[in-house]
């Protein structure tokens, strides 16, 4: 004997929600169609693309290995230097800004906002744009690259460091304050041990990113392996371009392995 069947209906969405979802789909399709028309894809070039790709690779291979020692190695080392010095510069500049941005250290809304503004300003400008600015100021070369990497990294390092500082447990801080410790010692013995793992993790991560970013800075004249890449591209020496791209790829993989290895040991 079953209960009398009163059919109960179930719908995941109300009619209004269904209409809204349909509107979103319609809008997405319309946007794609409109954008595709606006981009003005040239059919001949599109049809040609696979052949051109194959052609590019055949011109790159075999690499011009001899070029490594004459034109790439020095630039690669310079890239490492730019990334490392830039990261150190960023740390030196980001630590005070992070302390100013952390609300548990600087108890002034105005200063917090000012520090946050500096961090956002640093991050909102791309490394290449920073590099263009510094090339204009210092002239082409590695110095402009170091400054560009440094200024772009302040925002990243400072923001994450400020967050790590704000996450510090208040208990030990209170305990040190209660012993009559001066602010410098509270910072050094209370905050620093709690922030230290995050600090090294942030710095290593940023150094890893900076290796990659400094590889392209040469395109605007700010030193490093990008200069070699730019020259090879301009001269249409595709076998050199292929070599340089492969070297950059290898370096990125190696730094990734090294930094993740160190990070896992710190934490």
């Amino acid at each position: 004997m079953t209960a009398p069947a009163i059919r109960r209906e179930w719908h995941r969405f109300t009619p209004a929600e269904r209409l809204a979802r349909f509107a979103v789909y319609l809008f997405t399709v319309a946007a794609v169609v409109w954008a595709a028309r606006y981009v003005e894809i040239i059919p001949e070039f599109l049809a040609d693309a696979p052949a051109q790709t194959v052609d590019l690779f055949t011109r790159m291979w075999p690499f011009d290995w001899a070029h490594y020692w004459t034109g790439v190695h020095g630039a690669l080392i310079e890239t490492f230097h730019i990334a490392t010095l830039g990261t150190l510069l960023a740390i030196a500049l980001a630590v005070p800004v992070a302390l100013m941005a952390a609300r548990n250290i600087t108890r002034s809304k105005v200063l917090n906002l000012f520090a946050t503004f500096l961090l956002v300003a640093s991050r909102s400008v791309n490394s290449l744009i920073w590099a263009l600015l510094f090339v204009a100021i210092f002239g082409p070369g590695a110095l402009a690259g170091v400054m560009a990497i440094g200024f772009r990294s302040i925002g990243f390092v400072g923001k994450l460091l400020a967050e790590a500082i704000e996450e510090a447990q208040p208990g030990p801080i209170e305990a040190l304050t209660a012993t009559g410790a001066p602010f410098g010692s509270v910072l050094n013995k209370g905050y620093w041990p709690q922030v230290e793992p995050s600090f090294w993790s942030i710095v290593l991560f940023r150094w890893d990113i900076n290796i990659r970013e400094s590889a392209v800075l040469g395109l605007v004249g700010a030193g490093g392996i990008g200069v070699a890449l730019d020259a090879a591209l301009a001269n249409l020496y595709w076998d050199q371009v292929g070599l340089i791209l492969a070297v950059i790829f290898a370096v990125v993989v190696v730094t990734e392995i090294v930094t993740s290895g160190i990070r896992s040991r710190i934490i």
Partner: protein
Amino acid sequence: MSAVAGPFGIAGPDDGPALLLRNLSKSYTAGKPVLRGITLAIEGRGITAIIGPSGTGKSTLIRCINRLVTPTSGEIIFRGQSLDSLSGSALRKARRRIGMVHQEYNLVERLTVMENLLCGRLGYVPVWRAWLRRFPDQDIDRAFELLDAVGLADYAHRRADQLSGGQRQRVGIARALMQGPELLLADEPTSSLDPKTSVEIVELMARLAGDRGIPVVINIHNVELARRFASRIIGMAQGEIVFDGPPDALQDQHLARIYGGESWLE
């Protein structure tokens, strides 16, 4: 019995109270006082236990004494010095004469036991010396002595986060005594510990403070522990003192007044 002399055991004047609170009030939000006009004199030795339900202002009271909380009104007079309006380095100098043992131990987890003890000296050691870990030899000797005294002689190089709750609180007590305090405050020092360890911790604190002639003010939930170790019990309810007397005088009627209701006493 006279107090221990020397650079760390500082004997207070036996005349007059070590600590005097006069009409102390605190409101975190205006119109809702947590403490209502507390007047209290703490003598130069012995354990004073403050009991009372949660949220009754015990913790606020003890934090007012070393000014982790700034009272709204009233006076705090510690060995003849007024603390209620101090700030900056004068406040830090006053704080280093008052040791504090915390509810959640409040050790710096990633530092070793030895470094946590030396943190008790931060009020005396210049920032640059602490930064370079160049603490005076007498501080280090003192730390080893205190590690022996709290039964952690072999733990100097352990990180604080490797210790059990009871061991951490022993480190907390040793850190407070590193200051060479003239008053020891303890804010619910046993509430995170099991019953046996709780007894051991209060016993240790009573013994070490007694040996050094340091008066202790302790917030404690456990009435039996308070009766067993304190020479004086203060009962608080709704921000006011409703009982003040020796442990023997504390009767069920007082407990009913302090905690409210009576059925739990049967």
